[in-house]
């Protein structure tokens, strides 16, 4: 029987597009950007596509990764960078083929500094750079996963201010919901995290927001719906139905301000984020205040749908994370950037799902962006781009502190 094509107990449904596996275990972390996954699971979107989604809240990204690789989770709300690190075998786990089914959101992460730094008057990038370079302060920054998006935003932002993220400061990994407690205990001087945890720290008087991730890269890629490649291959109908359910939910959330507000209320529940509504709703609606007295309506706040622009798994988005892994020495050699992105990004499944919902799906899987340091990324020359930065760790072994 070894020659039989991937036999499943449900071979009898072949020939229809009904999900081969109708009940899926979906992992997520308690973050505002898991919204469309939670709404899809609880508000009847999954049912309409023949699925039952069993939501499994995870305590850390490392735990989520292990369950995704072992198959305990069928799919998960996941950091973009984490998927590529697992696929390439970076970070102490053997390489395991992964797939990105769709983008879940853009924007809405932030870098905060501690009240202690605030009291010292370190409330802008220049003051931070002075503190590090002229006064030789050794600061510790937390992010949420060594190869995750928060590590990459933190490194990119620090480097854009002339601070080398691996030489001039220390970094540690802390689960998102524990950032404020670590700041309060004085264990860290700043962190990069997803909302609502930056807003929540500001609300608790535990520091201020120094930079938003969208100020680094407006409409940057952030969380994705990830699964093991084997899942997408073995259950293509389930994977497509899952994309449809979550895409429809993300469209619903952005249909009106009322829907966004109800979404914030749902997320604040103890089963999901278990956080006061006041920490979730303002930034979900784009109302920012940084804890220093500045208020603004952010033009690049959380995007869960944006008419599908937040959801298309652009090849250039996936490739960007690999260029940063290379830049910081997490990859010692250049991968086949385009080839790997083509394997991981499930463009065909996504466009089938998007088309069936009438969601626009641009034919070109690359996009062009201008980042905070003036660099332009369009996916055309990843090899050159990875080498284009004045601060880097191209020639170094991966740092022990970030390889944990």
């Amino acid at each position, binding site marked *: 029987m070894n020659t039989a094509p991937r036999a499943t*107990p*449900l071979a009898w449904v072949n020939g229809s597009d009904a999900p081969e596996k109708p009940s899926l275990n979906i992992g997520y972390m308690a973050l505002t950007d898991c919204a469309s996954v939670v709404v899809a699971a609880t508000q*009847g979107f999954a049912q*309409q596509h023949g699925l039952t989604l069993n939501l499994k809240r995870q305590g850390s990204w490392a735990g989520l990764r292990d369950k995704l690789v072992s198959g305990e989770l069928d799919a998960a709300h996941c950091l973009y960078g984490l998927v590529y690190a697992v696929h390439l075998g970076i970070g102490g786990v053997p390489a395991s083929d992964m797939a990105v089914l769709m983008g879940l959101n853009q924007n809405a992460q932030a870098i905060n500094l501690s009240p202690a730094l605030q009291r010292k008057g370190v409330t802008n990038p220049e003051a931070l750079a002075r503190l590090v370079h002229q006064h030789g302060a050794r600061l510790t920054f937390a992010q949420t996963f060594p190869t995750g998006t928060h590590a990459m935003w933190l490194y990119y932002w620090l480097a854009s201010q002339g601070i080398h993220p691996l030489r001039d400061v220390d970094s540690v990994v802390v689960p998102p919901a524990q950032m404020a407690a670590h700041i309060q205990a004085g264990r860290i001087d700043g962190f990069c995290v997803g909302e609502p945890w930056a807003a929540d720290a500001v609300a608790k008087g535990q520091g201020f927001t120094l930079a938003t991730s969208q100020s680094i890269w407006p409409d940057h890629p952030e969380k994705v719906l990830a699964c093991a490649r084997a899942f997408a291959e073995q259950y293509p109908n389930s994977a497509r139905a899952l994309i449809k359910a979550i895409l429809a939910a993300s469209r619903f959330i952005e249909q009106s301000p*009322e829907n966004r507000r109800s979404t914030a209320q749902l997320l604040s529940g103890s089963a*999901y984020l278990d956080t006061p509504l006041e920490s979730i709703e303002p930034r979900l609606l784009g109302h920012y205040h940084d804890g220093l007295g500045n208020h603004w309506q952010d033009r690049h706040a959380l995007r869960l749908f944006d008419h599908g622009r937040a959801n298309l798994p652009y090849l250039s988005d996936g490739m960007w994370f690999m260029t940063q892994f290379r830049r910081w020495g997490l990859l010692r050699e250049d991968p086949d950037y385009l080839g790997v992105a083509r394997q991981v990004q499930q463009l065909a499944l996504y466009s089938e799902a998007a088309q069936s919902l009438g969601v626009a799906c641009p034919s070109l899987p690359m996009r062009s962006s201008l980042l905070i340091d003036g660099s332009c990324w369009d996916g055309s020359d990843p090899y050159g781009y990875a080498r284009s930065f004045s601060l880097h760790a191209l020639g170094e072994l991966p740092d022990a502190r970030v390889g944990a």
Partner: protein
Amino acid sequence: MLRILLIDDTQHKLGRLKAALIEAGFDVTEAPGLTIDLPACVETVRPDVVLIDTDSPDRDVMEQVVLVSRDQPRPIVLFTDEHDPGVMRQAIQAGVSAYIVEGIHAARLQPILDVAMARFESDQALKAQLVARDQQLAERKRIEQAKGLLMKMKDCNEEQAYTLMRRQAMSRQQKLIQVAEQIISMHEMLG
């Protein structure tokens, strides 16, 4: 080591299987015939496999098999002298994973148990998926029903009705199905 619960339901209590099982290196717990409460026995012994040795599986045997399949699902292997295909079909329907007529050799036990366990696992997975499908369908029907009631009450279209129900559910941190049930019971009460 595989733990086996052995039920000897043969008339002469020959213990024909026990020796073969021990010889093949299994951890065997023996229980007398099927006058016992099999689900309770399975719960205490927590075996990997249940083996029933019986001259002919009568209604009592089938009933116990059905109960175990429902309350304490385990792979069940039935050894018997009964050749009747009708009886065999009944036994499989009751939840037996393997039906073995005669021919008990120590060397054959392992592959028989392997097949029975694999069969059991795939049956269980299938069953779980079917349950999920049924539940989904039932919930979908209830949500459709509530949506229809709301469309009449609020004189709105389908999409508006869905949006109203979803907003209500989300702002109360509930699932859509919960709000659907509330609408249906409210409608029943108000007649």
